């Protein structure tokens, strides 16, 4: 079967989604990321792997954090970085996606990091670019956010190295979340035996069980004895129609408080992809508490993005 992410030798050519990637490639990325963690602590926080290459961040949808971490990852690999905020640029003047991309190809960019509000945008660009260019999906619509999924499993692996003996709960707005889909694919591919999703029915896609997860609508039952709690952001901007009574009501039922967290294992870790709505999906005391690994997620996210870029720049060799 044709897999647009892999080249003829089965090596990584583009990173578009976790779905469809074999366990071996996920492990290669995670193992490579280990080597990049320490670079941030050195006197010179740079390695010359992407020296002379141009990485172009094309963001059709605003995102400060993801763009910043991709930018810092590319810069620590010594690449030149071009940031294009298309939502405020030519698209508002009527230019099509592929015209925008063609212009950047003409500027000899070597790698595109793409975020778009439409699912499938990164695929479209990957099929359009010449062979020398790699595309990284930095989030497309509700579909996929592969580097977030990878950095989440990297963080889990750092704190809970035995992935084959874990119970993980993903809590919140799964319906609108590309992060949740990428997390589920990454966790199940890496052999995590029990992945749960906890959400109200209105915030769950139909047939989510088919991805190999157990569905819970009640926090008390869902959080019982889990090792990892992955909170999702309530995506107000993607909601149309009354899916929830109110954010206060949501916090009461699905917001992560210490009291609810105490149902999980005593050494459970709490994760959140950011940006957080404090007091909506997560209580401040938990977000800043001793079980929270939310800031390590950000730090590891840079190492994971460096690993993905380094592997793509060498034609998929890890």
């Amino acid at each position: 079967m044709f897999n647009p992410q892999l080249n003829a030798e089965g090596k990584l050519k583009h990173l578009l989604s976790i779905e469809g990637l074999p366990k071996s490639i996920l492990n290669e990325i995670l193992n490579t990321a280990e080597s990049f963690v320490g670079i941030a602590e050195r006197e010179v926080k740079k390695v010359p792997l992407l020296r002379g290459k141009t990485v172009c961040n094309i963001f059709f949808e605003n995102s400060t954090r993801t763009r910043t971490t991709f930018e810092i990852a590319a810069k620590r690999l010594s690449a030149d970085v071009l940031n294009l905020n298309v939502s405020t640029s030519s698209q508002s003047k009527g230019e099509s996606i592929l015209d925008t991309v063609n212009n950047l190809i003409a500027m000899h960019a070597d790698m595109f990091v793409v975020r778009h509000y439409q699912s499938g945008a990164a695929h479209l660009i990957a099929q359009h670019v010449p062979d020398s260019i790699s595309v990284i999906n930095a989030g497309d619509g509700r579909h996929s956010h592969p580097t977030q999924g990878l950095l989440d499993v990297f963080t889990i692996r750092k704190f809970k190295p035995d992935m084959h003996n874990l119970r993980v709960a993903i809590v919140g707005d799964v319906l609108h979340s590309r992060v949740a889909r990428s997390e589920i694919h990454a966790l199940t591919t890496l052999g995590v035996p029990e992945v749960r999703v906890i959400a109200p029915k209105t915030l769950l896609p139909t047939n989510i069980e088919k991805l190999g997860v157990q569905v819970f609508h009640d926090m008390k039952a869902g959080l019982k004895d889990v090792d990892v709690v992955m909170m999702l952001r309530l995506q107000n901007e993607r909601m149309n129609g009354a899916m929830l009574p109110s954010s206060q009501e949501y916090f009461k039922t699905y917001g992560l408080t210490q009291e609810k967290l105490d149902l999980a294992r005593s050494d459970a870790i709490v994760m959140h992809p950011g940006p957080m709505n404090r007091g909506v999906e997560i209580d401040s005391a938990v977000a800043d508490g001793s079980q929270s690994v939310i800031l390590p997620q950000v730090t590891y996210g840079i190492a994971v993005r460096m690993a993905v870029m380094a592997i793509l720049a060498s034609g998929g060799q890890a």
Partner: protein
Amino acid sequence: MKLPDPEILIQEITQQIKPLISPNTALVGIYSGGVWVLERILNTLNTDIAYGKLDAAMYRDDYAKRGLKSKNQPSWIPFDVNDKEIILIDDIFYTGRTTRAAMNELFDYGRPASIKLAVLVNRGGAQLPITPQITGADIPLKSHQSFQLSQDTLGKLHLSLETSSTPHDHEESPHV
């Protein structure tokens, strides 16, 4: 060709390293062969000398061709490199390109006072103005030949000679 026993070569270079050691010295092994050699030297020296381990894959000039190799190890330099007298340790010296990459990486940790290079075997064929100061043995090889250092499950080191049909253009021991 009768190949030397790497364990004896290690004793040989350890004797050469001993008089060079000062309170300011640090030993740095290059993955993977150089780290095996480093560990044995540390066992023999039995002093609390500063040491570290380098994987120079990110600094290699042939990175685009060969990638990082998935078994690459994170570099680990736990001491302050500034003003240290560093002895780099590798197993086989060939083109000098690994040494160049390792030196470039070291300088990203700080400015050492000096760097010397110690290797088990110099097989000849340097392509850069770099040469080891401490050598266990000089055994010139043809370009299609290469030495491989391996470690068995008991931890014993073995040296083997490999011959390939295509000449290695600029490859030292495979740091995989």
